[in-house]
């Protein structure tokens, strides 16, 4: 596939992610920080996000399995996870986290569990789209 076509495909994915609300203005902020000194800054931050949030997701899964449920701990983990989502502009995932927080506050276990499955789904969807996006950019960059 030629360079221009790859770049166009990447640009289309990026626009779609922004238009469909998967990503917000914060992602654009990260792009504006990218420069010749850090040409892969956005990908580095996103990779860091997925590495770090895997740990938080595991912690939340474990906390949901514990009996009795420690809603304070759950809220704490989710607060950290939501903060990270916010930092990379993961808008849809972050919005789902708000719902989780509300269920935690009223100690509604079923609501927390159900919402968390939705959060994980949105998280995985975004991850796959971003992986494709960065892969296209990489392939385009390799073509002279």
């Amino acid at each position, binding site marked *: 596939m030629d360079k221009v076509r790859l770049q166009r495909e990447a640009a289309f994915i990026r626009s779609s992610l922004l238009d469909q609300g998967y990503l917000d203005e*914060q992602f654009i*902020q*990260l792009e*504006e*920080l*990218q*420069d*010749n*000194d*850090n*040409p892969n*800054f956005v990908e*580095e*931050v996103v990779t*860091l*996000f997925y590495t*770090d949030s895997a740990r938080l997701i595991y912690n939340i899964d474990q906390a949901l399995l514990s009996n009795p449920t420690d809603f304070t701990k759950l809220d704490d983990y989710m*607060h*950290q996870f*939501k*903060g*990270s989502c*916010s*930092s*990379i502009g993961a808008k849809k995932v972050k919005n789902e986290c708000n719902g989780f927080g509300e269920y935690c506050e009223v100690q509604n276990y079923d609501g927390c569990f159900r919402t968390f499955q939705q959060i994980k789904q949105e998280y995985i969807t975004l991850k796959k789209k971003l992986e494709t996006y960065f892969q296209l950019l990489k392939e385009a960059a390799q073509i002279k």
Partner: protein
Amino acid sequence: MTSRNLSTQLRALVVDDNMINRKIHQKMLNGLGVECMGVANGKEAVDVHGYGQSFDLILMDKDMPIMNGIEATKKLRSMGICSMIVGVSSRSMDVEIREFMEAGLNDYHEKPLTTAKLASIIHHIINTK
């Protein structure tokens, strides 16, 4: 993309347990010509000052393990640290912000920070130096 080659000769300390936020905020500050250092909790922030380091700006996260932003801010002020301390948090309840401000902050901003917000803070520091 272009490299920025300006230096304000200011030094900043980014205090945040979230390494993503540390990376982003440090990059933003570097882009504004500010030399940066990052630590992961309030105790480390207090310790670096104890070792003799000084900063023009401290970006202090509120919720951190070991020592949180409120405790660290109080401790730094009690040590006579007069640097500008800007609290940052994703918690937005008035009572929490008030408690954080009363610990000794100069300013507070909700996360995520933007380059524009940081530029405004930097300009303020430069103008009051």
